[in-house]
């Protein structure tokens, strides 16, 4: 069998944003019937390139060919008409709409909704993919895996011949990833081209027919089918690391995530932990509207010198749990104790003063005050307190001294201390938040998705800080994460949350991931 014809061809695509050259003359050919994986660090330009193809961004230079014909894609409608469907990293389904309404979105010629046609299409494509989706249920009630299946079905119904999946597995359970893999195999058999963006090498190796690596906006190289089939995983890993970090491979071999390419590095068990620092007993924390809360009594303790993980697919009660502990919402029942003191009725500030810290997952929204300077953001939890404020007067020199020390210690990449925090990248914001929360001797720190969306180096730094926090045996950490490998690397014990219920707590010993995976699936309906 010869080489399959090209479904999409990108030639010399360049795209810049103010101050950033996101894509620099990238050329890429995607063939019919293949799964083409795109690898690269955060900010390497993967999403930008795909957004150019999907009509979200217009390229500054370069041309796009679809099925051999030169085309211009000016808006998402053009992309849809050309048979290019994209499943975005952030779901583009509307949670309050039903499955059917989401399918019908944008299908409208004429006034009446084509409900009948949508039902027929749903049935046809569900059968093709081997999944079952209830058309009348609200999308917000579906699991993330089901939502993704729905997005794929919608793209297919719109006549997509090229399907772009932007980090599709980041929110899925191990079972969900398996299902997705099966669906993709089904689609490529039908002659569709799939572009699969990921930063997990293992996945690219398992799912992809070819792999292209982007680095700093440029195409670093493509690994062809023969090499993929013939090579072992170790060889492939070596090639990809060389493409991603040319010349640096040897030095970076120790970085956690690259180690993670092979499988999680497990932390060594710490000696028996100290006294309990954070105790939750029979806590109930209701969710906001449309959100899963902690709906069944939850009990959990974090001891001094211990990292406890909370595993689970996003949206299973993680945020209510974190905010309930931090004091941002009230527990409806049960007790929360911090080093023996009941804090359930205390305010956020009072809990903070007792040594409780919260590293939020919403860095830009609530982690920092975007218009304020880096320096002020680094002391924003101590407003009014000496030495930064004395008798209501701001001591600028003291604040700057403190901020400069933290910027140095945490390698916070900011032009000046006066730069507004909102203008900095996500990784830098996370460093600011972590630096602020870890200063002034915390007792218990709750981390909510601490490395979500961060690049390799920042991820390694944050994980290292979590390890160092508990090392002395004075403090404890609760790490809520959707990344199982991260939890296996960091934690002594891992609690599993599903549909607002604590399914169990697993000691982090070899084989724990199977047990955790089983607990995650046991409570869901995937």
């Amino acid at each position, binding site marked *: 069998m010869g080489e399959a014809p090209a479904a999409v061809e990108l030639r010399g695509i360049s795209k810049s944003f103010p101050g950033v050259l996101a894509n620099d003359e990238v050329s890429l050919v995607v063939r019919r019937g293949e799964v083409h994986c795109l690898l690269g660090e955060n900010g390497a330009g993967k999403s930008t390139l795909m957004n150019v193809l999907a009509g979200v961004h217009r390229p500054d230079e370069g041309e796009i060919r679809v099925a051999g014909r030169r085309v211009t894609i000016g808006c998402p*409608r053009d992309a849809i008409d050309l048979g290019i469907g*994209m499943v975005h990293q952030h779901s583009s389904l*509307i949670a309050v*709409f039903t499955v059917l309404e989401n399918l019908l979105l944008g299908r*409208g010629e004429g*006034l009446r909704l084509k409900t009948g046609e949508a039902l027929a299409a749903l049935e046809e494509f569900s059968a093709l993919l081997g999944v079952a989706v209830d058309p009348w249920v609200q999308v917000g009630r579906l699991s993330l895996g089901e939502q993704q299946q729905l997005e794929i079905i919608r793209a297919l119904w719109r006549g997509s011949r090229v399907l772009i999946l932007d980090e599709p597995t980041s929110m899925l359970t191990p079972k969900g990833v398996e299902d997705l893999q099966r669906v993709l195999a089904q689609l490529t058999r039908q002659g569709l081209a799939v572009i699969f963006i990921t930063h997990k090498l293992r996945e690219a190796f398992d799912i992809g027919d070819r792999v292209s690596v982007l680095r700093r906006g440029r195409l670093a190289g493509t690994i062809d089918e023969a090499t993929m089939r013939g090579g072992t995983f170790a060889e492939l890993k070596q090639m990809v690391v060389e493409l991603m970090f040319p010349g640096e491979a040897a030095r970076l071999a120790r970085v956690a995530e690259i180690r993670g390419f092979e499988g999680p590095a497990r932390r060594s068990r710490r000696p028996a932990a100290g006294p309990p620092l954070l105790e939750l007993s029979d806590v109930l924390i209701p969710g906001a509207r449309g959100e899963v809360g902690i709906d069944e009594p939850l009990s959990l303790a974090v001891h001094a010198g211990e990292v406890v993980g909370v595993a689970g697919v996003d949206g299973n009660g993680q945020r209510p749990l974190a905010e309930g502990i931090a004091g941002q919402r009230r527990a409806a029942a049960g007790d929360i104790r911090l080093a023996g003191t009941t804090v359930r009725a205390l305010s956020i500030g009072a809990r903070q003063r007792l040594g409780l810290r919260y590293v939020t997952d919403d860095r830009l929204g609530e982690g920092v005050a975007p218009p304020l300077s880096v320096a002020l953001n680094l002391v924003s939890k101590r407003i009014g307190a000496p030495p930064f404020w004395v008798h209501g007067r701001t001591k600028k020199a003291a604040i700057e001294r403190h901020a400069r020390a933290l910027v140095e210690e945490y390698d916070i990449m900011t032009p000046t201390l006066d730069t507004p925090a909102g203008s900095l990248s996500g990784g830098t914001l996370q460093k600011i938040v972590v630096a602020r929360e870890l200063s002034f001797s915390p007792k218990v720190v709750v981390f909510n998705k601490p490395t979500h969306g961060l690049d390799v180096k920042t991820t390694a730094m944050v994980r290292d800080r979590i390890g160092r926090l508990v090392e002395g045996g004075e403090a404890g950490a609760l790490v809520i994460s959707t990344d199982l490998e991260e939890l296996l690397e960091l934690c002594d014990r891992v609690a599993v949350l599903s549909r607002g219920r604590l399914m169990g707590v697993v000691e982090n010993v070899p084989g724990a991931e199977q047990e955790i995976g089983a607990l995650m699936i046991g409570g869901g309906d995937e």
Partner: protein
Amino acid sequence: MSSLLTSEFLAALLSGAVIAGAPLLFAALGETVSEQGGVLNIGLEGMMLFGAYGGFVVAHWTGSSWIGFLAAIVAGLLVALLMVVFCVRMGRDQIVVGIAILLAVEGLTSLLHAAQFGTSYPRLGAVPTVRVPWLADVPVVGPSLFGQPAIVYIGIALVVVVWWVLSRTNPGLHLRAAGWKPAALDNAGVDVLRVRTVAVLVTGALAGLGGGYMAIVVAGVFVPFMTGGMGFIAIVIAMLGRGRPLWVAVGAFLFGIALSSATSLQLAGVNVPTDVVQMLPFVTVILALIIFARQSYLPSALATPYVRGRR
């Protein structure tokens, strides 16, 4: 107090409620449309006021209430056009622009009215009423509820139309998507700004009609600042209605009762200071907000301008 329960009182209260509630119904239906599309239309009162002015002037010139209503719609559309240009197309802050629109219209209508009529306040003739056969013959309730000007029945029909469009049609689905997650609508290949533009224009037309109704049917005269907070009450009704036109209609009627109780209480001979009675609708607003606002369920992209590719 037993005199409160006479049939005269009830009849006056109900017919007053419909008269006072109808402009709220038009405006709140309009606000519902733009809120569902993600545009918070604080300038609603301005659209009503300009509709009242335009409707009155044209009805006065032509002597026809119907042409007056049409002019009111056009006047509301003109004001809505400002909202479209600044908020939908240029992505400016909807609240600031809305307040600016209200202040500008208040000044403009006062000026135009003074230049045209000086200190005289010419009156329009009464608008003929249409009796609904059978229903109008029901004792007490019948004559007061089913002997209204034709425009009121159009308003009731609009409740059904808006409900149908929102829940059963493509434009309705796109409208709600523009309010809940405009990026999703854009990715589906639908022009978000176009959907929102149409939504704001519909709002302007309906609010203008509501204002025109106040000048042509209720007052028969134009007085500067005559909308007196009705636009803001309509915004509250739309928010409490959560995008469900039937609830909007119920809300408009209940606020209509609060408004008309002012006159009906006096008719019943209850000796309450008029200032206290005139506070009733606003007290009702505050009570309704205290009781129900916790559950108000607004589109998540409300009051957020849409720019493609920005998260």
